[in-house]
């Protein structure tokens, strides 16, 4: 689905917008548009034609109607922390920022939910209800900055999602505006709605089906007790084994994270979390629940860890120490950012038992490309974040990094996993989609998009590759001697 932009001059478009938007809400000068040229994946940059910052739903509808009428593509943007280029602007498109939608509209303590605007920061929701002993469960590491609208669009996860679920499990209702400017209510204040589960479909749809203008999130009561264990291993495989054994013991930890040696060293240098620097891997295991329950589970988990060959097991002695254990993990990305000029964060998910094999594969690739890798792993749910260290100033290194990243994702798919666990496909992993899904499945996804956006104007070119793109990409990467997408003519 190609957009045929009729390239309305930017100033003409700006004039149309200024009829109902304040002057400072339509950004047209280059220096004003510059801050919007990329999201968290800054290796891709593109200045948008215009930036608009509406503040009412009605204004969003009008912006979209005008863009529809003039066939101008639109990219929605939350906080711009996305890591796959989902909010990357289009040269001939309008960037629609939801930043001014930053209000919490209502908190319903009786039914434990909150109605919020899309630009509200993830953490702000938990802060607003903390006095009532409630919180919003999904906690991406970017939670101080990322927006709840962006979380829905990416179906964001966090370190607690093994037990408490992803964004899709923690929302009740959305208000969306379609590219044609029509407002739809999706979901309800009850636990379900009749008809198709559009709430699930919108979650993780990367801003391609509709612009989310309001979200009703579920709130959970805080657990009575929390405890964190830190275990060191001299062999990554043992750490991986321990993860499976904890789960086999019938325990679902609130969080279960793994870091390998390069990640441990970087995090320790940055955050002084007291991590054992020579360990091959560490596991952080958070348990929550009733007081006594947690005490018992800590003992159980300790035994499992020791039986799996942990060289050291520490139980946080205080809330402060618990924070400290987490501090290193939560700072892992910036920590790696400090030891290398640039890093590239991958996001595959694998069946957990495949971990040793996939890690060995990553090590081999790291040697082949001469690019170091630090691994951070949401071990509980199999979501792997290899961070490839590189220097974009060295000619060709970014390209090699991207190629290596692509091969890591291929490893994940071959292991029965997926190319993205929580960061989305965006522009970054669009080629790998051709490996994970058949052409018929991709076509079906395009048809689904067309049901919401027949003209293909909302965030076009992201997430779902065209078959032509796959054919071109496939021509470069022939697998097992088979030509992918045989139904397409070669060019």
């Amino acid at each position: 689905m190609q957009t045929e932009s009729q390239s309305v001059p930017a100033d003409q478009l700006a004039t149309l917008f200024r009829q109902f938007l304040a002057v400072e809400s339509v950004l047209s000068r280059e220096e004003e548009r510059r801050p919007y040229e990329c999201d968290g994946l800054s290796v891709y940059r593109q200045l948008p034609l215009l930036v608009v910052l509406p503040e009412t739903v009605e204004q969003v509808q009008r912006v979209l109607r005008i863009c529809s009428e003039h066939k101008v593509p639109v990219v929605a943007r939350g906080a711009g922390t996305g890591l796959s280029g989902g909010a990357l602007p289009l040269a001939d498109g309008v960037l629609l920022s939801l930043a001014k939608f930053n209000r919490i509209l209502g908190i319903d303590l009786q039914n434990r939910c909150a109605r919020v605007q899309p630009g509200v920061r993830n953490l702000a929701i938990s802060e607003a209800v903390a006095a009532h002993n409630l919180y919003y469960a999904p906690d991406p590491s970017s939670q101080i900055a990322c927006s709840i609208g962006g979380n829905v669009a990416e179906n964001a996860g966090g370190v607690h999602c093994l037990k408490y679920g992803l964004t899709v499990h923690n929302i009740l209702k959305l208000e969306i505006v379609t590219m044609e400017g029509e407002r739809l209510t999706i979901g309800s204040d009850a636990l379900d709605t009749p008809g198709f589960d559009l709430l699930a479909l919108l979650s993780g749809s990367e801003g391609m089906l509709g612009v989310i203008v309001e979200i009703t999130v579920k709130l959970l009561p805080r657990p009575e007790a929390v405890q964190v264990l830190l275990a060191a291993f001299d062999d990554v495989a043992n750490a991986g084994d321990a993860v499976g054994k904890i789960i086999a013991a019938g325990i679902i930890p609130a969080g279960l994270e793994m870091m390998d040696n390069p990640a441990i060293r970087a995090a320790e240098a940055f955050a002084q979390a007291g991590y054992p620097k020579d360990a091959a891997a560490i596991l952080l295991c958070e348990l929550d629940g009733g007081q006594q329950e947690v005490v018992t589970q800590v003992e159980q988990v300790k035994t499992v860890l020791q039986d799996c060959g942990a060289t050291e097991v520490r139980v946080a002695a205080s809330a402060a120490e618990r924070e400290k254990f987490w501090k290193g993990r939560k700072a892992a990305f910036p920590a790696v950012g400090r030891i290398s000029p640039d890093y590239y964060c991958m996001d595959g998910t694998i069946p957990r038992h495949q971990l040793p094999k996939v890690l060995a594969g990553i090590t081999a690739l790291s040697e082949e490309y001469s690019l170091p890798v630090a691994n951070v792993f949401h071990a509980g749910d199999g979501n792997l974040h290899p961070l490839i260290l590189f220097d974009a100033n060295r000619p060709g290194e970014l390209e090699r990094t991207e190629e290596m990243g692509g091969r890591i994702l291929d490893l994940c798919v071959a292991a029965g996993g997926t190319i993205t666990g929580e960061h989305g496909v965006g522009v970054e992993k669009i080629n790998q989609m051709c490996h994970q899904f058949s052409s018929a499945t991709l076509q079906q996804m395009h048809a689904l998009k067309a049901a919401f956006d027949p003209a293909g104007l909302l965030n076009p070119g992201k997430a779902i590759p065209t078959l032509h793109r796959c054919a071109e990409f496939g021509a470069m990467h022939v697998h097992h001697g088979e030509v992918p997408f045989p139904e397409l003519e070669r060019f």
Partner: protein
Amino acid sequence: MIQQNIAQELAAQVQQAFAGKQPLRITGSGSKLSSGRAVSAQPLEVTKHCGIVDYTPTELVITARAGTSLQTLESVLAESGQMLPFEPPYLGKDATLGGTIACGLSGPRRPYAGAARDFTLGARIINGRGEILSFGGRVMKNVAGYDASRLMVGAQGTLGVLLEISLKVLPRPVCEHTLIMDMDTGTAIAVMTQLANFALPLTAACHLPATPQQTAQLYLRLSGTEETIMAAVTFIQKQLQKEQQTLSVTEKKNGDGQADAFWQDLRERRLPFFTDANRLWRLSVPPATPVFTETLPGECLLDWGGAQRWLKTDAGADTVQAAAQKMGGHATLFDQEGATLAPLSPALIKMHRQIKTAFDPEGILNPGRLYEGL
């Protein structure tokens, strides 16, 4: 025939129907016929496509073909101390996994653990063109492409024939206790609302209306380790005292046949409340919704901590629908015609039609099962 061929064979049948614009009625064991509207079309038999494809308990994921009997699936999970957390209603002993997911029904544990859709990770389907497609995957976290697998849950076969489904599973709790106390509806709603503010190991909460033989009662189920439950029981009793609810609580321990049967009968809609109803409403509403007998007179049973209310009323359909909508929810009518879902807004109906067309351009898959024209 090997399973691969069965899938191909089914796809061929759909292709043929697509070419001939011949509607199909997807048929499993027939246990959930009353969960939608009747479809009159040529049957497409799917139960032969069965068997577990992949199950590694420590991955907490099971993949099975849609024709697999729910009973088989649950007993395989039980052998490894695991379960389907959404406690699916069978509504017939031969219920299949495919029907369970297609209807998207969830049992008493739903508000505490999640619904069928929440545990669905991936699906292989045949669309209305007879193409075999795969969405999602077999891992717990996956945002590659649109989440069309969860879209299949509750679509009742109108978007695709389910071939294979991957589900997240969880460990089975070691103990389960049931607390039973005499209580009127209003108080029960207040108590359930109050308790929901604490992270308790609650896994079901149901209120039964009074009958000539029995006063109204609140049933609470707690699951976890023995000590977790004991602590929770003490806590709950303290809370009840605070609310001046100094009443007697009957506690039924793990494996108590009567308590287990109660929750099963609730899940299967087999309690006496259900058996004498030939016109039954299901209201899905925010859990703390107050008693509504003034607007909707009749007998009401509360499940899901108040979020699912079964109502026997003489009020007219429009009155019930309007009331449910005003409460922030919706209502479904179960009668001889099967299930009639709440009407959708014109904008939503249009979107549903477009999505239907995207998957099933000739409208041959279970036409009319959810709504007229879908």
